[in-house]
């Protein structure tokens, strides 16, 4: 049993989208701009040329926040959305009836409709692919050129992620909603 989370050194991100492609190839996510488990959020730059605000131009890699209090899990009428023993929020495609309540409930817009199965899909921390084979990194972490992500067990005090979080300041997204995300953005 583990309690999986992810730390993101997001200032490293250069918006190359290697993670998006790696995720799709690893997990069989359909092509199409509206079909993705992970993405890089880009903010349009502020200012007028040549006086542009460099600070306003940011790249924020994002995905399912793997909330401890996941609103998507609460609203699911068929219990398709559930927690694994390792604390990963997953969708059981056999139970999903595509009511899309979960998509409405997710404050992070992290879910999409997988059209070949007509069910809701989202980031699984590669639980059913890489982790199942005993690998210890997710596809997005492994491929990243600037090594934004560190995935690991939050309950293991010796894991790299625990050490990082103990030593580096970090924040979570939309903390005020009380969802207790397990994605930590390092400051």
């Amino acid at each position, binding site marked *: 049993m583990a309690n999986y989370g992810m730390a993101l050194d997001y200032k490293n991100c250069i918006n190359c989208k*290697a993670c998006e492609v790696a995720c799709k*190839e690893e997990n*069989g996510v*359909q092509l199409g*701009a509206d079909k993705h488990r992970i993405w890089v959020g880009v903010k349009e730059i502020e200012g007028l*040329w040549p006086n542009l605000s460099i600070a306003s131009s940011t790249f924020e890699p994002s995905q399912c926040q793997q909330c401890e209090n996941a609103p998507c899990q609460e609203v699911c009428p068929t219990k398709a959305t559930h927690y694994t023993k390792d604390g990963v929020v997953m969708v059981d495609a056999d139970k999903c009836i595509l009511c899309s309540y979960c998509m409405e409930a997710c404050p992070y817009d992290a879910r999409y409709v997988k059209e070949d199965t007509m069910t809701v899909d989202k980031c699984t921390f590669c639980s059913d*692919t890489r982790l199942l084979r005993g690998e210890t990194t997710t596809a997005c972490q492994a491929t990243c050129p600037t*090594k934004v992500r560190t995935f690991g067990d939050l309950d293991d005090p010796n894991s790299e992620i625990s050490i990082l979080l103990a030593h580096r300041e970090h924040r979570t997204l939309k903390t005020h909603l009380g969802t207790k995300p397990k994605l930590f953005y390092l400051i």
Partner: protein
Amino acid sequence: MKVEISRRRFLQGSVALSIIGGTSIGATSLLSDENEHGEMRIMTRTTNTKAQKVPFLCGMCVNKCAGVARVEKGVVVKLDPNPYFPKSRNMLCPRGNAGIQTLYDPDRLKYPLVRVGNRGDGKYKRVSWDEAYDAILNGTDKFKGLLQILDEEKDNRSTIGYCNGEGLSKEGFEELMGLKIGTPNYVDEISICLETVLGGYSATIGAYGEADMNNADYVIIAGANRAEAIITPDTMDMFKRSKGRGLKTIVLDPRFTNTAAKADRWYAINPGTDLAFVLALTYVVFSENLYDKEFAKKYLIGYEDYKNHVIKNSYTPQWAEKITNIPADEIYKTAREFMSSEHPIYYQGRRSVFAKNDFQLRRAQAIFQGLSGNLDKKGGIIYGKKLALPKEDVNSPMYAQAQDRFDKEGIAIFAGKTGSWIVFRNMVLEGKNPYPVRAMFMRKHNPMAGVPNTKKTEEFLKKMDLNVMIDILPSDTTMFCDVILPEASYLERTSPVASYGFLEPAIVQRRAAIKPMFESKTPEVIYKELAEKLTEPLWKNSLKYDEDVQDDTKGMKVDELAKYYKENGFDLTEPWEKSVEELNKERVVKAFGEEAWNTLEEKGVYYPNMDKYHKQLNPNEYQYYPEDKKNYTTKGDKLKVVVNFKNLAKKGVDPMPTWHDEWAFKVPDGQFRLVTGRHAQFTQSGTTNNMALRDLIPTNYIWINKREAKKRGIEFGDMLEVKSSVGKVHIKAYPTEKIAPNMIFMLHGFGGSSKEMEMAYGKGGNDASIIEDKIEPVYGAAVMHETNVEIRKV
């Protein structure tokens, strides 16, 4: 191509047949669906089944990162980074990940094809390999063969031209065409890419070097865009420490790039004026005595002349402000910060040549680096070391009838081997060639999209009697070829072993993850078979016309003649007697022993003491060499910075970097300066048919300043006609403040004209069709940023 199968049938039939010999594809590993436009899409998914893991070197761009292919039941389902290679340090970029989509691209060239229609109309006939080779040698009723051409030209081998793109099998093609068949007329990507930066740095500090971004504390990166044009290890090292984390980053670029987004300061410099900026930095350094005097005295040859030159010409920041659009105060500040940093780097860059003064710009940058003394040391530009592999000699015959290359017009320093694409093409078109050029043998190269002025390239190709292409996809250029030979993609071939140098050197090998699909063949097998087909008939042609050969062989008996043919290198097949796999093993075992070979086969990477040195530091990072074994300093007292290069003056080139007013940035009213560039998701035109990458960037747009667009009533997505003196393109608008009001920007590599590349065809605009074919005067390299254009809404 009429014989091609539809995308749907490709999935149902060909992939299954050719990858796993007729058994059905594991339903979970290779997925397909169809989008609303009826385009078939293929995706992979990994499973828990037993998989082979095959180390490869990526072939999606020139960088050659190391990866490991996961192969399940004969299908490549995932490409992962290889943590053993010190250059690419455990990463793959989006293109590296999307390599599977190139391997399984339904539009791939699958069989040899021979043209049966007119050039450019796309009518081809599927033929066997032998028929294709035969068509090259003997022609068909539609085109002449090589033998007839060389017979008509009395064995003047120089009447054949050839070109090739970057890659591990490039050398073999040069051996076949240049050393064996014997033509000097070779052009490649160098003269449309980074020729002046390689030349400028080599002439000045003796090498291009490598920037030690891991230990630098200050970097000026001008015109290069490492966040989007990914080069390892630079990209990885640079952005882990930018944004106030140890590496102060100053970016100069006419447009706001993703690299600029990571900068401490961004200067929107006028295109083509970087040289004035560097000269002004140098002025500050000399006038305020900020340079490393001891270092300069010891290693900078002629620096006092340069000091006088820079001061005398008053290359002040105030002077540069007017030229560059960068405030004088900022230039002062940057020069002072640079020289007071412990490990400053003026990043060399490795982009295309943008302006006519590029050679001098690179000289000025290299000298400026030298003035800091931060050369051949940790945190600076380093030289490093390379692990030596034994070389194979090629026995190259002498052809008396072959003539020298001629593409020297307007070039000061003629770079013998690879020449200038623009000068070569244009001289042929203008009839300035002293002898005819009648055939082009091309491989992995798409001059229709890469060489400025596409119309001229098309005319040039149409002028040839014979065009041959070896490639994996039917590119724009392929569609003007008479014989098309399908090559195996990089995941289907074992390539000649390579040595990577610098700080942490290693030997690397690309191993085939799967066998060549369809009827494609690896490049070395194609070279071998082509050589086998051509060798006897071409030898007979030499016997008929070559007076030296005739003199030498007069009165020889059959067996003596055969011996002469072998001993003098006329046997074209000799370099391919052994397979790539055999040669790799032989070379590695000879240099490093059997165990090294086993390591290389298993891990894809080998370097001495790898078993001891290589360690995982954390889930993301590895140690390749311990700190005291890294090659930070290798030159020592042999270090030399040539500041005043007097010999250049003899060639009509300024011996010291000098600004000329004709280089000032000027755009007539109502026009725009066209700038082009790269993107992390595509590598030139070669990747534009890749579905996973198309998914990220479906088309290119024209960046136009928001206020300027508003003035002209242009909104996002409006179709614009962009017109220069050489051509026009239609492309959609993207109004943004990231570019100056008198400039526009478009991504390179889009706007494909080959209908056989379904994902790429007609998407966006091809910059090569509007960039004017101007050259810089030192090597004749194409300048990409000196074209002004007009735009209008259509």
